[in-house]
Every structure is written in structure tokens, then in C-alpha cells.
């Protein structure tokens, strides 16, 4: 039953992924002109002469004069073989450019998600069980402040505090000596030492909203008849709480993965700029501005696919913890 559900759910992602790839390709095709028009404009602006013949030759070489579906087909069949095309602007394969940045983005997003859960789960439970206590009010206040403050503002404030009071630069994900160094244990440790600042910045608002969600869910469950039944069995209050109401309050918590993940990645763009993080956000923006379509397309496609995968993971987790989902 469970296996059938998972297989069915995975099969469902295939049409989704195809749709997502079509939409991403349509998106990068949407602005008028192509890379070569903006390339020509840049050349003209710097006073260089634009050789129309050369432009036409380039256009033909990259297939930019072909109809939409043909271009899409060329692109997507390349992607399936791991070839994302050539970045016009950087003049090197897109695959070389994106993997490290995507990796860091996902790393940051996962770290933030874990942080969010680690904070929201216990605080949310506490807030619900001790409703209207001092602790609940404190959590609520912090929650609302966290929700209301934009991430980049927190980033700026933290940077200011870091520089003024601790005399250290908190931006970036690596220290200078590891900036361009190949991967090593030292570099990983260095990454971890830097990662916590953006994690806190990005995690504040989602933790705040998850605390509220957890609190509200649990408050709904705490007075359900099955809790009374379990109490009448003689369970201790803590076991009871964890085994019954928290277990049921977890459902919406798990479904948050689906939306929290893409939100973290797209929400990170501004913060990444402020903190000059070497993640995908800044490069994506640059690629979009330059109409560097293969680079931008690869990013958009990967981010969208991550969203679909996030949904898939949350659906499967949901089926694991709640049998009612499986039997529908």
C-alpha cells in the first residue's frame, strides 16, 4: 500500500517536471530579443562596431533563429545528458558554473530548514502546552518580530554589529584563504563556521511562522477525545503529549517542507547580495539581466525541480506518518 503510494507519487512528478522545464524555457525566452541583441547593444555602447554578418553566424550556430519548440528540444535533450549548454557571457559550459553555487544554495537551504525545525518544534510545543504563560508570550513576541522583519534588514544589522563590536566581517561563506581553494576538510569547517550567520538570518521568519503553525495545530489537537482516552489508560503526560497530539500536529509541519524549501531559495537572493554569498541567487540575477539564456535556464530549471522534489519528499513523509493519506 505504502509502496504503491510512493511509486504513484513518483510517477506523478514526471509530467510535473516536463511542465516545469517547458515553463522555465518559456520564461527565459520571454524577454524581447536574445543574448546577441544585448551583446550587440553592449558592444555599441562601448563604441565597438557591430558586424551584422558575425551576429547572424553566431545566431545560426546557437540555433537562436529556430522556432521555440526546436530550441526547447535541443536544450532539454542536452540537459538530460548533463549538458546545460554554453554560457554566452562566461564563455564556458554552464555545468561548470552552476554546480558549486547550486550546491552551496541547497546546503544553505537545508541548513536553514533544519535550524527552523530545531527552533520551531520545541518552542511551538511549549507555546501550545503552556498557553498564555510568560514563555508563550515571549515566543509570540519574538515570533511576530521575526515575521515582520525583512531578512536583508536583519542581515544588515548583524553585519553592522559584527563589524562595529566584534571587528570581523560576517559576509561571505568562506574566509579569504579558502576563497578559491579546492575542497578540503579545512574548507568544509570554514564553511560551517560561516554558514550559521545566513542560516539564522534566513531562518528567523520561517521559524517564526512555523512556531505559530505548530502552536495552532497542537492547540487544536490537545483537547481531542483521543487524548482523554490515552490519559485514561494511565500514560504519563509527556509520553502522552509526544505520542498522540504532537504526532498528529506534525502533519502540517511536514507539509511545510514543500513550500518552505523554494521560499528559502528564492528568498535568499537579496540576503545573498547583502552578505555577498557565493550562492546561486546573485549569478541567476546577473544571467537574467544579460539574457544569458542557457545559464539562467539551467538555474530556473534546477530551482523548479527542487521545488517539485521538495513536494515529493513532503508527500512521502506525510504518507509515512499519517496512514490516512495512504489509503485515499
Amino acid at each position: 500500500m505504502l509502496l504503491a503510494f510512493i511509486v504513484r507519487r513518483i510517477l506523478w512528478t514526471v509530467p510535473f517536471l516536463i511542465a516545469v522545464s517547458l515553463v522555465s524555457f518559456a520564461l527565459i525566452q520571454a524577454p524581447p530579443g536574445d543574448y546577441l541583441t544585448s551583446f550587440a547593444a553592449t558592444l555599441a555602447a562601448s563604441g565597438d562596431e557591430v558586424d551584422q554578418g558575425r551576429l547572424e553566424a553566431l545566431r545560426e550556430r546557437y540555433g537562436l533563429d529556430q522556432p521555440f519548440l526546436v530550441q526547447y528540444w535541443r536544450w532539454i535533450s542536452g540537459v538530460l545528458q548533463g549538458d546545460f549548454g554554453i554560457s554566452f557571457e562566461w564563455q564556458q559550459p554552464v555545468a561548470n558554473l552552476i554546480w558549486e553555487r547550486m550546491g552551496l544554495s541547497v546546503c544553505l537551504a537545508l541548513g536553514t530548514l533544519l535550524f527552523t525545525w530545531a527552533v520551531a518544534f520545541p518552542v511551538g510545543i511549549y507555546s501550545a502546552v503552556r498557553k498564555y504563560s510568560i514563555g508563550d508570550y515571549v515566543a509570540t513576541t519574538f515570533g511576530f518580530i521575526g515575521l515582520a522583519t525583512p531578512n536583508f534588514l536583519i542581515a544588515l544589522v548583524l553585519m553592522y554589529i559584527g563589524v562595529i563590536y566584534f571587528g570581523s566581517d560576517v559576509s561571505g561563506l568562506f574566509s579569504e584563504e579558502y576563497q578559491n581553494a579546492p575542497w578540503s576538510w579545512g574548507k568544509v569547517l570554514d564553511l560551517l563556521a560561516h554558514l550559521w550567520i545566513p542560516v539564522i538570518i534566513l531562518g528567523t521568519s520561517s521559524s517564526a511562522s512555523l512556531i505559530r503553525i505548530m502552536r495552532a495545530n497542537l492547540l487544536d489537537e490537545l483537547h481531542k477525545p483521543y487524548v482523554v482516552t490515552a490519559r485514561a489508560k494511565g500514560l504519563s503526560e509527556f509520553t502522552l503529549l509526544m505520542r498522540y497530539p504532537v504526532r498528529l500536529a506534525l502533519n502540517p509541519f511536514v507539509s511545510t517542507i514543500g513550500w518552505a524549501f523554494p521560499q528559502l531559495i528564492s528568498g535568499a537572493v537579496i540576503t545573498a547580495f547583502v552578505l555577498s554569498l557565493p550562492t546561486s541567487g546573485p549569478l541567476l540575477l546577473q544571467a537574467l539581466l544579460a539574457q544569458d539564456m542557457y545559464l539562467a535556464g539551467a538555474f530556473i530549471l534546477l530551482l523548479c525541480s527542487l521545488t517539485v522534489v521538495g513536494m515529493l519528499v513532503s508527500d512521502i513523509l506525510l504518507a509515512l506518518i499519517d496512514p490516512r493519506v495512504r489509503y485515499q
Partner: protein
Amino acid sequence: MPDTMQAAWSPGEAEAAPVVLEVQGLAVDFPSRRGVFRAVDGVDLVLRSGRTLAVVGESGSGKSVTARAILQILDQPGRIAAGRVLLHRHHTTKGAAASGGAEEVVELSALAPRSAAIRAIRGRDIAMIFQEPMSSLSPVHTIGAQIIEAIRLHDRLGKRAARERAIDLLRQVEIPRPETAVDRYTFEFSGGMRQRAMIAMALACNPSVLIADEPTTALDVTTQAEILDLIRRLQASHGMAVMLITHDMGVVAEMADEVAVMRHGQVVERGPILDVFERPQHDYTRMLLGAVRALDRPSPRRLAMRAANPPGAPLLRIEALRKVFPGQRRIFRAAAPPVIAVDDVTLELRAGETLGVVGESGSGKTTLGRCVMGLFDGLGGRIEYVGRDGSQTNLLGLRESALRPLRREIRMVFQDPFSSLNPRMTVEQIIGEPMLVNGMLSGAALQRRVAELLEMVGLPATAMERYPHAFSGGQRQRIGIARAIALDPRVIVADEPTSALDVSLRSQVLDLLLDLQQRLGLSFIFISHDIGVIRYFCDRVAVMYRGKVVEIGETEAVCTAPQHAYTRALLSAVPHPDPRRRGLSGRHRYTEGA
């Protein structure tokens, strides 16, 4: 006083059965910002091993709170304000074995609600089952997991042994194929099966006292009869003392050895069942019994009305009505089979009569009512309506614009008086809405009409400024009735209008409906699962089973000489409010084709 009462009744038996649990002068307070509300006030109860004490009362009488106070599982912020709850452990088989016969009295009320001491009592010595078997079991744990948990909490048993015991318990409560049922989830079971699983869980540690809080209220009569029978047999084999909390005098008469009648947090009368039923001392007990007995026979008022003014020509003719809910279409899998909710039903409703539709849940009676209301598409058959001018129209296949004027003539009263009224509208808006929507009245004229309608249903005109939450269940149902008659309809479809109400209110609401029938010349289609109410209120009755009408006829004829085997089974399962006519063990279940 209790001593004299017990002495008056079978003294030998009373002595033979030792006292297991005693409640003395119990008071429970619920503090709130507006002061302290005393839900239970000076309650004395005695439970004897192997005997059943029924605690009976209407909603809000404090009977459930009393039960929860015994186990100290009161909802926040409730607390025991006075009194004692004593468990005589040495009188229980388990306690006697543990203490070697030495006297051991545990004062439960003195233990802290979260203490290990009281937790050891819960489930082991005193177990509890609840009303709503759906929500009282966890939906995400298997039945087995929940039973095994109860076993392993109190007995040192390995996982495998506990599982064996759980399967054995499921077998005891007669759940088919217990080996596979143990790994099932609650939502895979029917209501009756869930309640059996709940009972199995309560029996997990062989408790000496079983507290059953309205264990059959959410179940159909035939299922109720089976569950009550099961409780009685398990009580006999385990020697448990049972505290049965109920509002249903029929269940009390069927089950109890002793009765305690509660009202406003106090026990107004207490004694052996025959004394209470045959020589009730308190006015309230007499009123309760009177209300129940009145519902067990035809309303004299209705008989007089029909004698003076017999039902006329048919007003509504339902011919071969059929409603099929298509099975859900699923991708990657075969579609679920379709559900035939109403299967070839032919009925007619005569002018000025009340037609009852009786059946168990899932029999299609509510769907039938909704078909008449025009709430469904895709119906087969005909519903022919005879207008005031004698013209006949088939309601099926009419366009919405043509159906609109007819909607004013056929109105509905709903079951749940709490959810069928919009909490954000005043009573005036609720009752006035149908007239406003139909552009019939507005302004001061509308207000006058609302006042008039309120007066007709026995509410003061001042009620119109208030919101539904300010009214009790019975009053809300009156508001719902006022809304239904606002457009001066000819037919009212009433779907279980009294089943959410206390017994003493039921006959009042039914009498109000009779009164309105006489004044306004209404015809009713009255849907109910309650034979007593049908017998009191309906001229003819149609018995539905799995979407089909299996029997239709004059109510008294159907009730006294049922023709169809299903009707006989249904009637045999209804508990009579007379302890001398216990007969549920003589019931039989109807199986199709049998």
C-alpha cells in the same frame, strides 16, 4: 438514606456484591474569569462488583464530569473542590491477590492528577470508554498499537506476548479476523467495530471498574443492542462493576441494576432500577420518564387532529427515484465502485400528513430528503409535485429558474441546531433571510413578520436582536423551524430535527411541529432513526434499508406487526424504557438474503 433504599430492594444481593468504588460528596469546580462554576455538587455514588450503576441525566447535568473526576482526568481548569473518591482495592480480584486480602482503600481524590499513583490506577483498576469511537481513538496508530500500549503500561509483558493478548482481546469483543484486525487503523472500521476495539482496549488489564460514558449514543440501534449485550456479557465473565453514563432511559432500563438521576450537578434520585422506574420519588425523574414514555406511543393530539381532518390527496409523488453517487475516479487505478444511495424508491406524501422515513445510518434516508429538496443532480425517476392550483410538475429536470418558486413551497429543518444557524447573523437576519432573498418583504414589515414567526414557535419577539449562541439547543431548533416556515411552505422535510436534543425537549419540539401543522396546513417528511419519535409523530412510516424502502404503512401497523424481516430486526433492537421488558438478548440482526 441510601442504606434504607438498598435495604428495601433485594437485600441479599446487595450484601453479596462488595462495594468497589465509592464517591462521597464530590464537588467539581471550573474556575473562570466570571467566577467559579460548580459542575458537580455533592454527588454520592456506590459501585458494586458485578453490578451496573446507570447515571442518567440530560446534557450539562454533570454526569460526564463526575466520571472524569473519578479518574482525575478533568479538562482544564476543572478541579475537585470537595468530597472523596474511594477505591476498595481489596474487594477486587486483582487487589485481593496483590494485598493478600488485607484491607486496601485508595483515596483517588487525594492523589495528584499527574502522579504515578493515579496513573497506575487508570486503565489497570478503572478503565473508561467514551462516546465517540471515531475521535476517541487515535487515527494514526493501529488498533493493535493502542491496545498493546495499554497492556504494556501496566503489565510486564514482552511485545509478542502483548500482541497475542491484544488479538485475544479483539476476539473476546467479537471482532472478525482478529489476527489481521490488530494491524488495522480506526478509519478502516465501522462505528460499531471501533467501539468494540475501544472496549477491548479498556479490558486490556482486566479492570475491576468500567466507566462507560455514553458508549452507544453515536451508534445505530442494532449496533447499540450488540454493544450493550457485549458489555453485559463481559461484565458477567470479568465480574466488573460498570458505571454506565447515558441520557437514554431505554438503555438504562435494559442495563442497570441501580440508577442515579443527575440534574444540575446533583443526584436528585438514587436507587434500585425497579424502584426508580416504578415509584419515582423526584419530580424530575417523573418528568424524564414521562417524556420517554410519551414518545413510545402515538401522540393523542395527532390522533385527534387526524380524526377531525383526515389527510387529503397526494401532494408529492415520488416514483422510482434513484440516486447513484459515482465512484471516485482514480488515476493509475480502477475507479471505486458507485454507491447507490437511493434505489428505486416510490412514495407519496398526502396533504396534511406526516410521513416518517426511518433507517440506520447509510440507509439513504437523508439522501432521499435532499433529493426532494432538489439538492442533487442526475436523479432517475420522477418527483411529481401538485401545486396549490392542482397543476402537476415533475421537479426533476426543471431548470433552476422554474424550480425557484417551488423551493419556497418545500423547506427543510436540519438536524444540528448548532451548525445550521450562521453564528454571525442575528436571529432576525436568519429568519428574515429567505423573505429578503425572495424579495417578499423588507424593512419594518419584515421585522413584524419575524416577530410573528418567533411568536409562532414560542420565542419572544425580543429574541430577534440576539445571536444564535445566546440560545439553547431546543431554542435554536425553534429558530430553525421559524426560518423553515417563513415562506409559508406546504411541505417541510425535517431531517432528524430532534436527535440532537434532550429527551425532555424532544416532545416539546414535536408538539410545536404538530401545532404548526394544524395552523398552517403543513405536510411533513420526517426523517429519523428513532422509532419512538416516529411512533409519536408520524402517520405513516417508510422503513429504509440500503437505499430501498423495504416496508411502508401506517405507523402503528408497522410498529406492532412488522411485515419485513429487517423491520422486525430493527424493532427488536430498540430498548424499551421498562426494566421488566428487557429483551435485547432476544434481538436478531437482519442480513440480506437470510
